[in-house]
């Protein structure tokens, strides 16, 4: 079992090299600054258009009653999802009751330690040279293990097609030297694309700006390479707790505990063999 080093858990500075790429481009990713998101959903549309995504399994014309969010959640056919949160606050201008509107475009996190990739039994999920995580549709057999392994509820199986699908970070566009469709379409630069190192610096600067401007609630999510998933390739600036946006507060890659799981299963297997031996050790009849 490859439990040594940083393969399963912990800080990992060169994820593509860890995956076996001898030479590779810089790791790229998304920095989604939700403080400037205006909820236009251009990212959702651009993603659907570029990737030719079909209608989701759920009724596409149904209204959810969740503010302006009628998309609902990320899924097999929804690779960008704009969340809308309406909060009752006290207005800073009038001191009266007001509504604060949070908007955030969610996407696959392209984790440094990606549970979906770890558990995939066919090798359909792979790490690309850019450090992103992609499903090979010609290999996936639809076992749905990744669906339960993802700590963010991102990847899902398309039931009419039988395979698992998720954001590819527009792998085809990256290969052609273009930025992903969602980042290209974003009119406010809420979705920024680039080398992950640079994005993390940009994000720190922006966070300091917001704190200085009296926004102590601003925080980065997924930007820490020492967190439970080794930092994500797509990270966020949020203005409230992660769970308010439907994000897990402190996800840890499940594979971290894999050695311990196998130890308990191995001991139990030995117990089974011993149990049968004991049952047959007594006299007959």
């Amino acid at each position, binding site marked *: 079992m490859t439990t040594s080093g940083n393969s399963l858990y912990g800080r990992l500075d060169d994820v593509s090299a860890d995956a076996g790429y001898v030479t590779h481009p810089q790791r790229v990713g998304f920095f989604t600054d939700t403080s400037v998101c205006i909820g236009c959903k251009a990212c959702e549309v651009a993603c659907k258009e570029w990737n030719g995504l079909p209608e989701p399994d759920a009724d596409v014309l149904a209204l*959810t009653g969740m503010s302006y969010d009628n998309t609902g959640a990320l899924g097999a056919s929804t690779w960008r999802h704009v969340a809308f949160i309406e909060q009752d606050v006290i207005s800073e201008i009038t001191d009266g009751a007001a509504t604060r509107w949070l908007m955030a475009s969610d996407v696959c996190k392209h984790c440094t330690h990606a549970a979906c990739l*770890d558990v995939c*039994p066919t090798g359909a999920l792979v790490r690309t040279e850019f450090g992103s995580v992609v499903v090979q549709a010609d290999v996936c057999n*639809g076992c749905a293990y990744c*669906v339960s392994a993802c700590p963010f509820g991102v990847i899902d199986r398309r039931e009419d097609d039988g*395979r698992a699908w998720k954001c590819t970070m527009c792998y085809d566009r990256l290969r052609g030297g273009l930025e992903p469709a969602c980042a290209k379409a974003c009119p406010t630069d809420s979705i920024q694309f680039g080398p992950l190192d640079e994005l993390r610096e940009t994000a720190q600067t922006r966070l300091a700006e917001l704190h200085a401007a009296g926004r102590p609630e601003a925080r980065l999510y997924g930007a820490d390479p020492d967190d439970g998933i080794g930092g994500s390739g797509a990270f966020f600036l949020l203005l409230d707790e992660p769970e308010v946006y439907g994000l897990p507060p402190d996800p840890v890659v499940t594979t971290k505990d*894999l050695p311990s*799981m196998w130890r308990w299963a191995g001991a139990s297997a030995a117990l089974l063999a011993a149990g049968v031996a004991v049952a047959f050790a007594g006299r*007959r009849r």
Partner: protein
Amino acid sequence: MSQAEQLQVPPAEFQSYYGRPILKVSRWKEPHLPGYLFLGELSGALAVVGAVANATGRRSLARTARLAAATSAYAGGAALAIELGRPERFLHMLRVAKPTSPMSMGSWILAAHSALTSAAAVSEVTGRLTRLGSAAGAASAVTGPLLAAYPAVLLADTAVPAWHAAHRELPLLFVGGAMTAAGAAGLAASAVSRDRSDFGAAYRLAMIGSAVEGLGGYGLESMPGLVGEPYRSGSAGQLMATARYLTVGGGVAALAARRSRVAAAAAAALLTGGGICAKFAVLRAGKASAADPKYVVASQRPTASPGG
């Protein structure tokens, strides 16, 4: 149970995005997954029984166990295959051998186990290559316990709180269930067969298995707080309780099974039913655990006040 809950801190109010799940609810289906869990563990224990019976000269039992081990391995494999979104790509499971994927490891275990139990069964039926058949049967006593236990790793290695936290309890439930199922099969045979010389072994196996299975089930239901709640409430909780009643009832019936064939048949049916119920309960508990965001938030913020 309710009393214990009242002794705890009042339930926290969790924030969420319109109450929607943070995780995706498992796509694994009924009866496929629970059926596979049951058939796999049954085959695993029967393979060990066949090997031990062969080694101790119980020819008739060895024959029955070998045939049943091979049959249940293939039936379990079929349940797995039709569970896939693309069943025709079943063999993609053997495209790579991947230690980080319990399903990859499990596929190789199942493949090896199926091959070994088939070799033993074919040798048994044809009466040819009996040494090779015995060697294959003996090797299947190694793959069998692994086949029964690995699904615990498969379920625990997910983001589902009720599964991930249960990496100690699930393997006990599964290997206990394996012994119970094989013991119950022996009790069923003793109910209809003229030769009851193997009754004692089947009885002891069923009793040991029920104890281990009960321990695993008890462990799941007593996992503290919100992480164990899905095993205590809803349809999963009902199925866990039903499994417990059936297993205990089967154990009681087994006490009378030496004298009564009816009691032997009843014990076999009750014990088997208990094992199957427990497998359904585990799947449903996992789905309930993924469907409500409070379980995810609580598992990642055990001490923080709601809202941080």
